[in-house]
């Protein structure tokens, strides 16, 4: 009983740690967004917010203030203490439920997200909350539930512009989910194909299968399709149809204020961070240092963490993974402040006429290529479930 209790306590602590890291990454990517925006537009960005005690430290304090490092704290406090209006014309239950529905699926997906590795004897194990067989399906399933927050929020607000935002987002998300799911298939074929164990759809297996070469390098088209669909799924520019403030005021969250809006906002950024992490895992080799081209003597290049002691290799692999992820978070911002928004019919055309057929062609092409590879090089190593 005691060991069971201890087990539960440790798991809860791990889970809280994950939540804390992802939420602070989300909060600080809001700051990052504002800094990147100001950088691209030749401004300075947030540089005034100061904490009384720490900012009084001679050299370091002013530097931190200049970086705007206290801004997310101030934003959070502002969201918490502003008046929380409940407009008279809304559907109260769904109006209050929608921000929660928007945030919860984005955070739930972190459960199956491996973030690094450690050595258990000679066996490499993932640093993960739940190492389940269906990892990628779990993420797709809960990611697809995120749309309800926007749809319900737009509908419950009971006025024209939010309603348009909700309708647009439901159509957009269904369209791009399809392309997204199909662009992952070549990755899964590879991960379960010639050079790996019987680990099914788990994300750890996908990372392990990329030690030879990162999949994004020789599967650039599926990677691109996945990235574009990711932008559409997270409602970021150039696909922010549900929000598009030039046409729809604020889109689905026009009627929201204060902490409820804050939840939508944090949910979007959490979605972005986790989406970037998933892209890194699927196409950029996760925490693998560099590709080793399948050469045995170069194995230290792809997996230097296994050679280090656990206390060093584990945290370093996590930090390297977070670094890769943050690059894609930066890419999200870069794209947002560079590209103009698509028109709605262009969004639909791109999704259905280019991305979906493109993904289908990729599935067939890579299935043939991997099959030939299998026959040529790895048929005797291929794990078979049939004796």
């Amino acid at each position, binding site marked *: 009983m005691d060991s069971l209790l201890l087990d539960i306590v440790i798991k809860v602590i791990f889970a809280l740690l994950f939540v804390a890291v992802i939420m602070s990454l989300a909060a600080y990517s809001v700051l990052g967004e504002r800094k990147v925006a100001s950088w691209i537009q030749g401004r300075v960005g947030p540089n005034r917010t100061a904490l009384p005690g720490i900012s009084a430290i001679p050299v370091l304090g002013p530097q931190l203030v200049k970086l705007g490092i206290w801004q997310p704290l101030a934003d959070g406090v502002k969201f918490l203490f502003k008046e929380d209006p409940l407009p008279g014309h809304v559907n109260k239950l769904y109006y209050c439920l929608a921000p929660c529905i928007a945030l919860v699926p984005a955070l739930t997906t972190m459960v199956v997200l491996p973030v690094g590795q450690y050595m258990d004897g000679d066996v490499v194990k993932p640093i993960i909350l739940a190492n389940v*067989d269906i990892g990628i399906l779990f993420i797709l*399933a*809960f990611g*697809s539930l995120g749309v309800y927050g926007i749809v319900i929020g737009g509908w419950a607000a009971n006025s024209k512009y939010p309603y348009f935002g909700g*309708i647009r987002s439901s159509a957009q998300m269904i369209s791009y989910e399809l392309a997204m799911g199909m662009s992952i298939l070549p990755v899964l074929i590879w991960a*379960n194909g010639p050079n790996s164990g019987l680990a*099914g759809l788990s994300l750890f297996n996908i990372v392990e299968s990329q030690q030879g070469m990162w999949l994004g390098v020789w599967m650039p088209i599926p990677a691109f399709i996945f990235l574009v669909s990711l932008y559409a799924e997270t409602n970021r520019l150039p696909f922010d149809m549900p929000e598009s403030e030039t046409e729809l005021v604020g889109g689905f969250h026009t009627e929201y204020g204060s902490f409820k809006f804050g939840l939508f906002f944090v949910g979007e950024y959490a979605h972005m961070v986790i989406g970037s992490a998933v892209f890194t895992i699927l196409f950029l080799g996760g925490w693998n240092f560099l590709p080793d081209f399948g050469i045995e003597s170069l194995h230290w290049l792809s997996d230097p963490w296994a050679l280090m002691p656990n206390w060093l290799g584990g945290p370093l692999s996590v930090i390297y993974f977070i670094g890769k992820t943050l690059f894609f978070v930066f890419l999200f911002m870069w794209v947002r402040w560079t590209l103009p928004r698509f028109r709605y019919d262009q969004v639909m055309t791109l999704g259905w006429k280019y991305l979906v057929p493109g993904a289908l062609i990729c599935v067939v092409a890579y299935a043939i290529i991997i099959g030939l590879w299998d026959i040529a090089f790895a048929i005797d190593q291929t794990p078979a*479930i049939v004796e």
Partner: protein
Amino acid sequence: MADFLFFLFSALTVLSAFLVTVSRNAVNGAMFMILSFVGMACLFLLLEAYFLAALQVLVYAGAVMVLFLFIVMLLDADKARSVRPDRLTIVAATVGGLMLISGLAYVTFGPSAAPSTELPAITEMPQNATAENIPFTTASRSFGYGLFTKYMLPFQVTGFLLLIAMIGVIVLSKKIDASGDEPAKQKVAKS
């Protein structure tokens, strides 16, 4: 614990499925239906069918119900008047429902009910699987294996049925005039 969870999720599934049928507001109905699907996914989880659970959420809760909600909101179904069924329909529905329930009860508990078989052992990974003998596993790989060997024909036929349904919908929803052409549409601004 597993028993308690089973009753909890069964109650959730059945109750929300019941509420779908009685809720007057179409959006409420759709939301209860999502809840029912999620409850069913939890039941799959208790059966260690993780793959099915994920698909249940992904396909039904994530995609099909979004479309439902889309249509409900687009048509603003709240304002549709509710039609009161006539007496004959009520009587027929009651009789039909009672017959269905008694038939189910007879099949389940009656003298000719099938004996409850022992639960098959669930393994992590199939080791000696053949097309005739597919063991119960928790691995998603074994679903694929089953679909592409033992159940290949039903799988293909189902896919073909879906294709037929899809083409049927396209044909029915496209208005074709007597000459076999589409009627000329009003000019829309070119995209």
